[in-house]
């Protein structure tokens, strides 16, 4: 009995939470298909014209490309910075991990708005391209995601023994890493890259303040539209949401695949 009632409560609470979180998104979605929806309970009609208008707009394409570029660059830099370190911490020396704890709370102690203050103070007058600083700074702020996802990739297998086994069998450390470690943390790397990409793709604070309006990314374009054209902005918001949903879907697919693999390997050892 105890279990049943608590399950009903749990379901009720989750449904309420679901409605609460999803309502603004759904409303925006409907708004983006409405001919007009101002001060009425229901929209006056439905249309796709806002979509065709936005997608054919050159500003949209260029801001999308900028955000994509920013996301890709950041993803690569974050991997270069963290893959070797996480590998080292898991295979050579686990004590390193306690020193990396500071990274995981970085977005809370030094959020974007604080970091950008320091960046402006230091780099405003230096002849260094601001875009470079921006990419590096976004990489820094995405490190917690990258770190956590990569570190998770090392759970479940004895990577240290595998790496050392490859060395004993005659491989050089670099070759052992490429042949034995990399193929077995593929899923983790993929997840880390997706998460990093998503956070960089949607970055706003650093980009806006560091580069002013000179580098219009998707989010900045979204803000500009929000001030001037509600319909177009709702389309962009919906597209952004669909992008997030797509990333979540890919993540779920990867993790399912990964979990299945894990389960079968566990079955093997207990035989």
């Amino acid at each position, binding site marked *: 009995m105890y279990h049943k009632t608590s399950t009903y409560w749990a379901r009720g609470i989750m449904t309420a939470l679901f409605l609460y979180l999803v309502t603004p998104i759904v409303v925006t979605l409907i708004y983006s298909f409405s001919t007009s929806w101002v001060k009425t309970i229901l929209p006056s009609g439905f249309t796709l014209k806002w979509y065709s208008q936005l997608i054919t707009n050159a500003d949209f394409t260029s801001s999308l490309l900028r955000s994509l570029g920013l996301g890709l660059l950041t993803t690569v830099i974050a991997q270069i910075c963290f893959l070797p370190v996480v590998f080292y911490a898991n295979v050579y020396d686990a004590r390193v991990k306690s020193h990396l704890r500071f990274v995981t709370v970085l977005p809370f102690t030094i959020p974007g708005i604080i970091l950008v203050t320091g960046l402006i103070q230091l780099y405003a007058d230096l002849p260094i391209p601001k875009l470079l600083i921006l990419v590096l700074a976004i990489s820094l702020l995405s490190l917690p995601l990258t770190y956590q996802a990569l570190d998770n990739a090392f759970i479940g297998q*004895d990577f240290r023994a595998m790496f050392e086994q490859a060395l004993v069998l005659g491989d050089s450390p670099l070759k052992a890493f490429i042949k034995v470690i990399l193929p077995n943390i593929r899923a983790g790397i993929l997840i880390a890259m997706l998460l990093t990409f998503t956070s960089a793709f949607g970055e706003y604070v650093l980009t806006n303040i560091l580069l002013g309006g000179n580098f219009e990314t998707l989010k900045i374009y979204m803000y500009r539209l929000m001030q001037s054209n509600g319909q177009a902005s709702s389309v962009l918001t919906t597209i952004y949401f669909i992008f997030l949903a797509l990333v979540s879907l890919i993540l779920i697919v990867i993790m399912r695949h990964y979990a299945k693999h894990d389960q079968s390997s566990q079955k093997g050892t207990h035989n």
Partner: protein
Amino acid sequence: MQADFLQIQHLDITLSGNEVIKDMSFKVRRNTLTTFLGPSGSGKTTVLRAIAGLNQHVNGKILLDNQEIQDQAANQRNIGMVFQSYALFPNMTIFDNVAYGLRVQKQAPTEIREAVAAMLKTVGLTDKRDAYPDQLSGGQKQRVAIARAMVLKPKLLLLDEPLSALDAKIRVSLREQIREYQQKLGITMLFVTHDQGEAMAISDDIIVMNEGCVQQQGSPMAIYAQPDNVFMAEFIGNHNLLTGQQLQRLGITTAGNHPLAVAEHYVIRPELISQIQVPHSVALAGKITSLTMLGDRVRYQFLTDSGMVLKVEELNFMRPLSTNVPLTLFVNPLLIHQVGTTYAE
């Protein structure tokens, strides 16, 4: 047999600031299976990793087949290693796992195919050739790991607790197989374990370690019957460990062929206290207070009239000694072994 195929001389190992191995020296004979036995944390695995070249800070000399190897990288030593966790590469088939080292050496594909097929046959896994590690049982995985190491014909094969992750039954059968491979292929093996029974069962030689030092090296028989010091006597576990003074209270005045020294420690093996009287044996009066069934043997607690508790073991003839009735048992002082005064350093 070459007496000093592997020589460790004055080995010192420091791990994260702690000196875990202190001035350790020992030798291993060619074509033998030598076991490193000791409680966990005694440094067995550390020494094994040093021999394989996997430790960073090592002082001292390691000679393999008269060659100094302590400065060579792990991938230059031609030493095989088998890990407790199998360390199979999950992204490769069994064939590719076993072929790994041969491919590193850039051998011809036909040679690789033949060598791997022969090795898989030896370990009885020919039909698993194209399977992936996660489709194998623990015992099969460890056989792949052993095959992967043996196919390279290493000068020395190191096995780091290879059986610890396996079920009891598989553990026994696999240890016999390992012994068989060792004798068939003539590989020198160094085997780490914390399981006495395992060490006794398969070794030519046992090296017992504690706290970074060798306590005793010898044949399983010698390790069991003639512990060198108090640590060894306690480590073996089921012996009666008594001081000279305690022996005197039992009415015993000599041990081996020597008069007793009061402060010395001695061991009496429980199976050597019996109801059978031989010339020169000493009678011990007392009674049995409890018995434990061990299967093939029965272990008794024997309380002597002088107030001491002794462990006594007899083969199980299905007629155990009665408890709590007066009984006289006999021990031959010639078989009492002296182990030393205190713990060895």
